[in-house]
């Protein structure tokens, strides 16, 4: 799917009483392709500067592009994140046509075919439960409040394939801190949109709907965890969990819940969808662990999309240095 197609897909809106309203601010959010090119140039210029050889002309040009763009879509902080993997990103084409998003069907081609009907504006996020300041936030306000940054992360699916995705988002910790968790808060529960009209597979019993996920509060506060609103320098395509999705790079992909509408802080471990569906196959923690196998997939190896053969899977998906301390003293074979 080309970038232009992606934009057109978002432009396809239902006609109806509020169709006119919907085409207003929502369409303004879409980054026109020429501005995306601007950002690419900016990225290239930033890289050039880092190497001490940036041609001054292109930096000037890029700066002007970024100011125009700020209105359309939050410009990611261009500093490379210390968490970035140096590995080359998966092609955008593959990352947008090979997705597990069961709300649109179980086949990995289903989301790219069907998710364009998802209306991502207006969109509100509710944060409540064990917080001193529960709130309902409009997504556009959220985007303005938390400056987006780029994070290039590995993504490892429990089905033994992986990708490298340049996400755009902001740390979940920033949002949670502002809502001021109470002293009872120990877990964070996430919920996807429930709307069978937009998510056709919710008419079936494929999974218990809505999709739910959860993290321990200390996991959720880890600086690696982001709420993503874009990828590849553009707004998040619907098949990748638009308009707002969780990204927890050291856990299997199913933990990184898509199209989030609610975040609830809880005292007890919240029920999570795949764990409910098959508790012996999918644990609550679901940390990437080559030593704990799934009955259908060996977790020792993975196929990086774009590669022919498999490569060894790294503990915590290569983020052990950053996150292993969260699980000190835990038997990870039991808490898989």
């Amino acid at each position, binding site marked *: 799917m080309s970038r232009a197609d992606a934009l057109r897909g978002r432009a396809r809106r239902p006609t109806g009483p509020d169709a006119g309203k919907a085409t207003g601010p929502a369409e303004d959010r879409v980054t026109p392709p020429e501005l995306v090119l601007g950002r690419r140039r900016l990225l290239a210029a930033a890289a050039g500067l880092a190497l001490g050889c940036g041609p001054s002309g292109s930096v000037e040009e890029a700066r002007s592009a970024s100011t125009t763009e700020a209105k359309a879509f939050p410009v990611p902080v261009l500093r490379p994140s210390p968490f970035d993997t140096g590995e080359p990103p998966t092609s955008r084409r593959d990352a947008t046509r090979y997705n597990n998003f069961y709300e649109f069907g179980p086949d*990995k081609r289903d989301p790219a075919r069907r998710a364009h009907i998802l209306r991502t504006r207006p969109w509100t996020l509710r944060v409540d439960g064990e917080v001193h300041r529960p709130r309902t936030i409009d997504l556009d306000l959220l985007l303005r409040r938390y400056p987006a940054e780029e994070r290039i992360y590995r993504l490892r699916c429990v089905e033994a*394939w992986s990708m490298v995705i340049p996400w755009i988002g902001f740390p979940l910790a920033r949002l949670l801190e502002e809502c001021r968790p109470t002293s009872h808060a120990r877990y964070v529960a996430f919920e996807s949109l429930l709307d069978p009209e937009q998510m056709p597979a919710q008419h079936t019993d494929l999974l218990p709907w809505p999709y739910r996920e959860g993290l321990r509060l200390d996991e959720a506060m880890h600086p690696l965890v982001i709420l993503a609103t874009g990828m590849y320098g553009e707004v998040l395509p619907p098949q990748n969990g638009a308009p707002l999705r969780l990204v927890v790079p050291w856990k299997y992909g199913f933990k990184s819940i898509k199209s989030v509408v609610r975040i609830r802080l809880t005292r007890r471990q919240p029920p999570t969808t795949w764990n409910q*569906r098959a508790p012996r196959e999918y644990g609550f923690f679901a940390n990437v662990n080559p030593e704990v196998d799934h*009955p*259908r997939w060996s977790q020792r190896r993975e196929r990086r999309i774009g590669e022919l053969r498999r490569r060894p899977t790294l503990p915590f998906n290569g983020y052990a240095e950053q996150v292993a301390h969260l699980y000190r003293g835990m038997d990870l074979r039991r808490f898989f």
Partner: protein
Amino acid sequence: MARGETARRTAVGLAMAPALWIGIGLARDGLGANPVEELVHRTGRAALLLLLASLSVSPLGRAWGRPQLRPARRLLGLAALGWAALHAGITALLDLGLDPGAALEELRERPHMAAGAAALALLIPLGATSHGAAMRWLGRRWKALHRMVYVAASLAVLHVGLQGKLGTRQAAPFAAALALLLAVRLPPVRRRLTRR
């Protein structure tokens, strides 16, 4: 004889059809984002469909009163074996990196791998004894040996059922087809279906 020739040609066409299916997929989008996985799925589906097609030759022949369909049965069975071997070969090479340790681990720990490997292992002696000389040499035992095809087909359907995503029931149509093909072999059903 002309009828036997039609059956043979049809069988050859069916045996080669998966190559066309894979070729179209390659031409259209390079078999998608995970071409190895797609190739494994398509070769596997080809093998199972051809095995079921082979099992449907005898009942059709009986129902139509045309025993000369026999050569098609053998051809389709051999084609199933060929696609199954390719399916397993791609898995061994690209998923397991020809690592015997990894292969053993898969067979031990992944029930669907064990079922699939057992199905293929059963088909190999059947393919090897599918020609006329082996039939004559084995005599009565040939028929007993080739009844193993029902076990192989059941294992292949089990293989599909065990590997599929939860809740998707991918194996259901194959299981239904196999159940039907076994049912028409029950003596009372068979007698009723036979055209004399």
